[in-house]
């Protein structure tokens, strides 16, 4: 595979030029007879956004939920900030594909939910929630209910809820797949800003090649049957050229083409 502008490395030999916030070590996961993940290892650099990209059924959601502590791996382990994961923890927050908002609660209560579960006092958690509602651009909708909001706005609530607990690691499972194209573009820009200003590690699952290349510092391409990390791509040159120029950048276009070339064989 000729990918001249791209640094190509296998997972096992990732040079430790970055400090890892999350390390996935030899994870396997079986659902009964189905082998969803086999001996997968992957490093997630601190403060950066890593995308998991791959065809449907290659185990992206499974991997993300194992990192979140929502699923037990069959073997192997995950370390977050050097500590082995044994369940959900304060160091990680999840953004759900279907938003997972409480339909009976207002926006502000939804955003404060994580804090509520952590026992933060009502007035304090509302102040924090209000701040993040503003940050995701929903000021004025604090007292609205989820069903009164559009899909894009609902996901902003989900995002604010994950930000409000101030975890080191943000896990996002196809967060933008249920919103329309224009909203999605706006989201991608906002996400880039968020990675800049919030000192967090983002792990981002997506189906969209363009989206992955646009938002990621590092892209892990997963292939199915058996599920494995086939390559890790680190776009280097267009990240600081401004959000408006990325989609025209030659490196951006090359990477998109190359990823498509390696994935097309796996699309039914």
């Amino acid at each position: 595979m000729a990918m001249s502008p791209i640094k190509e490395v296998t997972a096992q030999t990732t040079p430790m030029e970055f400090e890892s916030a999350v390390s996935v070590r030899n994870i396997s996961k079986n659902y009964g007879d189905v082998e969803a993940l086999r001996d997968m290892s992957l490093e997630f650099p601190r403060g950066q956004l890593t995308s998991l990209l791959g065809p449907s059924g290659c185990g992206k959601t499974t991997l993300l939920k194992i990192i979140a502590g929502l699923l037990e791996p069959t073997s192997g382990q995950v370390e977050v900030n050097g500590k082995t994961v044994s369940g959900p923890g304060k160091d990680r927050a999840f953004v759900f594909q279907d938003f997972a908002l409480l339909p009976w609660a207002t926006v502000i209560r939804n955003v404060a939910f994580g804090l509520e579960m952590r026992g933060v006092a009502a007035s304090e958690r509302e102040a924090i929630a209000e701040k993040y509602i503003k940050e995701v651009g929903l000021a004025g909708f604090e007292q609205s209910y989820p069903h009164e909001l559009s899909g894009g706005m609902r996901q902003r609530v989900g995002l604010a809820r994950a930000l409000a607990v101030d975890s080191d690691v943000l896990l996002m499972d196809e967060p933008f797949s249920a919103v329309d194209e224009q909203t999605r573009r706006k989201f991608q820009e906002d996400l880039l800003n968020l990675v800049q200003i919030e000192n967090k590690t983002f792990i981002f699952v997506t189906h969209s090649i363009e989206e992955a290349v646009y938002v990621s510092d590092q892209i892990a391409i997963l292939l199915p049957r058996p599920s494995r990390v086939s390559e890790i791509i680190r776009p280097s040159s267009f990240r600081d050229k401004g959000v408006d120029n990325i989609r025209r950048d030659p490196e951006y276009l090359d990477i998109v083409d190359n990823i498509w070339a390696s994935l097309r064989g796996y699309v039914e």
Partner: protein
Amino acid sequence: MIVWGLLWEIVGQAELTFFIPPLSEVLATLFSIIGTPAFQKALAETAYAFFVGVAFAIAIGIPVGILMGKSRLLDELLLPWVNVFLSAPLTALVPVLMVLFGFGMKSIIITTALFAIWIIILNSRAGVIQINRSLVEMAHSFGASPLNAFFKIYFWAALPEILGGVRIGIIRAVKGVIIGQLLISIVGFGALFELYSANFLMGHFWAVLIVLFALAFTISEFLAYLERRVSYYASKR
């Protein structure tokens, strides 16, 4: 309604049978007995048995239903029994209860609760089973304790179904409280019915019946109204 009322009046006036007095007479009786101490005592006793019975059915039924929805083991253990009792002719159990708990209020309260509780359990269970899995995952991922998950997720997510169950349960409880009183006919309306029918006071009999029907209907409508208020989000979830 009006047509049926008129029909009743005509049948009554025609004096086809002593069993059906004219509606106007029934209504007149209704107003005359509504103030009597006997009636009010019966009403108070019935209301007491009803509310205590319903309170027990709700307080036990909802948590049991939710736990059944959450736990596979508990569900397999209890579901067959719930289904048996739901369709069982509970009236037949009343004599057994009388033996166990005596000929008094206690037996009537238990009868009432028994009539109401099974559908409440079943509906709460159904409400929990249909709950959106990702809400449960969400709560788990934010570190919700089992108690928090119970009160902040399961209960609210299942609320429309729970209320539906409570409404049907309460309608059944009305039956329960009356049947209980009829079989254990020394308290409440049971005693009144006994008195009236023994003395062939059909006007009184019908008057009491109308009051009971009206009460049951009002309660059921009120609950249906509550249900509609809550289900505004149920369709959106």
